[in-house]
């Protein structure tokens, strides 16, 4: 089984690992786009942050009411303290301290630590859900194009239904009914997000199917699976990579939006969950809503920059 999987992986990856000059060519084209390089650098930084960041920060779950609602370093807020002996409020200015560079939340948890561990969760959500959606979309798209006839019709009508379904409402509905566990949310986003990929892959595969090299392969007696894995998929792989890069931010945002309206997994502090908590204390501690939002925004921006750059690089007709 694993040998078979390895075989498939090698065949799919072949146009890249087997052809260093092609990779170099793509890299040269991508590198000319400064925004794409910035995107790639930020994503690399984010992955590094998610991998080793939690080792370097404080414990994101440790509660300390002595240090609650501290602003980020360089900012100050006013804090009212009630004195029970004199029966009056004294207002003091509170400054951010270097122990908590990004401030603390209403329970005194370190914002930096929460943002870093949130990066881990949000990235995982984006990668896994996109992975599921891409695999499903590719399978359905290739099958639809390759089988044709009634199978194509049935698959495409089903895709139409799924595409017309108000995606976010479906997500809210399913997560509300079956409960907000993160694994489930990821699964649902993956299982509902494949439609665009399926359509694109199908149309690409349809145009490839009539090309000479596929006809030649068939004429030489290649089996269906060989044609699909050796010829069709390697030729749509660059398209798949672009779709993946451009759909990861959508998935991260979908999870954040779900958390934002109160349907996130309360045991997993993703950026959306922190943001949701922060929007209720905008007047007292604005940074709790601002910080995870900035991270979300930069992440989406980085993936969009990179995706755009890759699309231009993979498309030989475009002039970067």
């Amino acid at each position: 089984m694993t040998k078979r999987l390895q075989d498939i992986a090698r065949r799919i990856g072949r146009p890249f690992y087997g052809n260093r000059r092609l990779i170099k060519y793509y890299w040269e084209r991508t590198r000319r786009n400064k925004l794409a390089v910035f995107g790639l650098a930020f994503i690399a930084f984010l992955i590094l942050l998610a991998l080793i960041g939690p080792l370097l920060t404080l414990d994101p779950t440790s509660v300390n009411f002595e240090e609650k609602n501290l602003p980020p370093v360089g900012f100050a807020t006013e804090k009212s303290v009630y004195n029970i002996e004199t029966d009056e409020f004294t207002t003091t200015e509170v400054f951010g301290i270097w122990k908590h560079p990004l401030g603390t939340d209403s329970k005194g948890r370190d914002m930096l630590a929460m943002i870093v561990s949130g990066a881990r969760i949000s990235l995982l959500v984006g990668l896994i859900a996109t992975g599921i959606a891409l695999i499903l979309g590719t399978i359905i798209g290739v099958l639809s194009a390759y089988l044709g006839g009634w199978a194509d019709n049935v698959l495409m009508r089903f895709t139409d239904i799924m595409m017309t379904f108000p995606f976010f409402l479906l997500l809210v509905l399913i997560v509300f009914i079956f409960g907000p566990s993160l694994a489930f949310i990821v699964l649902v986003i993956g299982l509902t997000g494949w439609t665009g990929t399926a359509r694109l892959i199908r149309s690409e595969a349809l145009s490839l199917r009539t090309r000479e090299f596929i006809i030649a392969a068939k004429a030489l007696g290649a089996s269906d699976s060989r044609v699909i894995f050796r010829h069709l998929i390697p030729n749509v792989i660059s398209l798949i990579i672009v779709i993946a890069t451009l759909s990861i931010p959508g998935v991260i945002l979908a999870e954040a939006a779900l958390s934002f309206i109160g349907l996130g997994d309360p045991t997993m502090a993703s950026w959306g969950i922190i943001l949701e908590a922060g929007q209720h204390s905008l007047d007292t501690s604005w940074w709790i809503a601002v910080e995870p939002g900035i991270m979300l925004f930069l992440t989406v921006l980085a993936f969009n920059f990179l995706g755009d750059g890759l699309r231009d690089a993979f498309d030989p007709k475009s002039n970067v």
Partner: protein
Amino acid sequence: MKKSWLRDYIIKRLFYSVIIAWGILTITFVLVRAGPTSPADKYLANIAASGQDVSQVIASVEARYGVDKPILEQYADYMVNLFHGNWGWSFSTSMPVTELIKSHWIYSFQLILLSSLFAAVLGILVGIYSAVKQYTRTDYIATFLSFIGVSIPNFWLGVMLILVFSVKLGLFKTYYDTTLPLFSLANLHALILPIITLGTGMLAGYVRYTRSAMLDNLRKGFVTTARAKGLPERTVIGKHVFRNALLPLVTIIMFDLGSIVFGGAYLTEIVFGIPGLGQISFNAIFANDYPVVIAVTLIGTLLVLLVNLVTDITYTYLDPRIRYD
């Protein structure tokens, strides 16, 4: 030109649309009815506290709302009622679903209409300017800003706008005032932040699409011809290039109208507390108010299908070369 094929095409598309709408209706129905939640859930805490028999109360509530029957029977009942124009009874607001929708759709409509207008007008103007001045500093700034606009999460943008303009500067209320008369100046003022929240993403998208559609056409032969004829640059850009760039733009704008109903508009209504269809379906989901959930989903779906069909038909008038088969 007679377009007899167009009539056949529309009939075929309508047929497909009905099938798709029916499919979505069925999926939604199964989802909401097969789930473990019940409209009696909200009473449970009170009942348990008062010491009554929980199962008996659940049974009576479920019998009242007709959700105790087998799911197939419920489904058949629902479909029959739907054909008679009866969309069901909203459990949580105690009124017919049609009444509920009639009194709330206008809030979604005005938000979406105003945001789309704002985004389309500004987006197309900036896009044209950016394309005409390609590779200038203005173009780079516009392109960069459009990237930012596309990437900014709209619910977060809404929260940030409230933070800056309502909480810190006090220019707007932090919630939407439903007592304001519709389509009045005061109402427009109250909708400024929601319009920016919903419109920014669309605006940025339109800038990018307009720019690339204009650039595609600027390089074509007929533009050179028009210039060679000595036509003023205004006419070349406004008549020759823009009219041809309009075709892809119409599709994008129409498609967006369909998709924002349940994406951006939904979240924007929740952030600002605007009582539109998104808000009522959101409340209905949390109250296990199935008929409202199904109705709003169905309306959204029909809207998307209708808009897609109208887009395709508009296409044939904008570009008479197009034929569907």
